[in-house]
């Protein structure tokens, strides 16, 4: 099903999204990947605040290329989400409900998604030039020393995503493949 949604990703909104839905997302999202997640989880372990309010937030696993003069941001497609599996349950436990990336997740992450009504969206891996078009503003908010891995606040308009795993644990990677194979029998 095709849907248009506006962030923040409240629990109510999250529960309306189902694996396989094509979603055009508008609103504020935050970027972080390996090194940024490690730092955020270390900060939480020390009892410190995150550089942004995680309540109903959506995190995009991306390390963009540098912006050319006149560009808001460089190419900005998703990175492999599995490397953030070690940190994702902690992030959800403080309220960050949405994740945008690509690739498989561990059962621990899916369990946390069911517990906190999380949603895992897929962006098209390798489509960095196309996805950058949806990003209307980008602001560096923390961890500048990490370069491409620094934390950025983005405003996106109609970002084309697909719900890969929904808050009930349904998984497009399993269901989509099974449906295709069943159609060939």
């Amino acid at each position, binding site marked *: 099903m095709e849907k248009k949604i506006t962030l923040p990703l409240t629990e109510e909104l999250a529960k309306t999204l189902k694996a396989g839905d094509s979603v055009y997302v508008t609103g504020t999202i935050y970027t972080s990947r390996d090194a940024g997640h490690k730092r955020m989880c270390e900060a939480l372990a020390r009892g410190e605040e995150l550089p942004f309010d995680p309540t109903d937030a959506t995190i995009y696993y991306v*390390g963009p290329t540098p912006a050319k003069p006149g560009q808001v941001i460089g190419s900005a497609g998703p990175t*492999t989400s599995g490397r953030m599996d070690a940190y994702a349950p902690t992030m959800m436990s403080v309220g960050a409900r949405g994740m945008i990336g690509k690739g*498989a997740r561990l059962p621990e992450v899916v369990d946390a998604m069911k517990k906190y009504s999380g949603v895992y969206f897929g962006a*098209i891996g*390798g*489509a960095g030039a196309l996805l950058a078009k949806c990003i209307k503003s980008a602001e560096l908010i923390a961890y500048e020393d990490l370069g491409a891995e620094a934390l950025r606040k983005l405003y996106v308009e109609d970002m084309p995503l697909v719900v890969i795993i929904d808050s009930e644990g349904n998984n497009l*990677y399993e269901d*989509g493949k099974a449906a295709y194979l069943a159609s060939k029998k």
Partner: protein
Amino acid sequence: MYNYLGMEGKTMREINVSQITDVVEKLCIEANQYLPEDVQCAIKKCRACEDWDIAQGVLDKIITNFEIAEQENVPICQDTGMACVFLEIGQDVHLVGGNLAEAVDEGVRRGYDKGYLRKSVVKDPVRRGNTGDNTPAMLYTEIVPGEQVKITVGPKGFGSENMSAIRMFKPSAGLQGIKDFIIETVETAGPNPCPPMVVGVGIGGTFDKAALLAKKALMRPVDSVNPDPFYADLEVEMLEKINELGIGPQGFGGKTTAIGLNIETLPTHIAGMPCAININCHVTRHKSEVI
């Protein structure tokens, strides 16, 4: 340039390594902005054959993406990779003017800076720390006949690199062992390496040579065919089998799991049959130039 007299009075061609720097700089930028013609054609051909709705939509967006990158001179993908630089150096060439590896790194440094490409290299595999300029390059040199230098830059993303595998088979595992390993590796990779993928297979040699063959297989045009009919047939058969797995573009389901599969081989030891599989994504980049 032909001013050096070799041992037998034969002239040797001198090439200044600064020329190599310039070419590497240019190829780093071009390879990241323009998807090779063979890869573009393969994706479009797969789109025409794809019959699954969600898969068609993904392939359309992938095509739009590489078209935007080409028109606007921006990177196709934000993972602009580790710069894999292959040098085929003619044995009648004398490289002058400095250290070759440093010249290549300087080309990478300039290319990744001027091309607004992402710096994705850490200085230590365990202790990490970004080098800030995407150096060092992964440099592969080969001495070949002639008096030219062929330079190929293949930026390699790690979403797909991480899904690669190598196995040291007993010869008794035979052809079936190789076939099963290819399918197992692609199935395990699943949605992670940004399918549709390109699969590079290296069989034979030693542990390290098999891996190198697999990487070289990815540098071959995706529509090229192994000159040995036995392996040419195997390439076709394995690509068909992979595209029956149902993984599809981005792993959302569909026919197009891989757009190409190349096999490279070498003789090996009586006791072994090494096999390496290097996975690449649909942004399989490589650009060459001859000096």
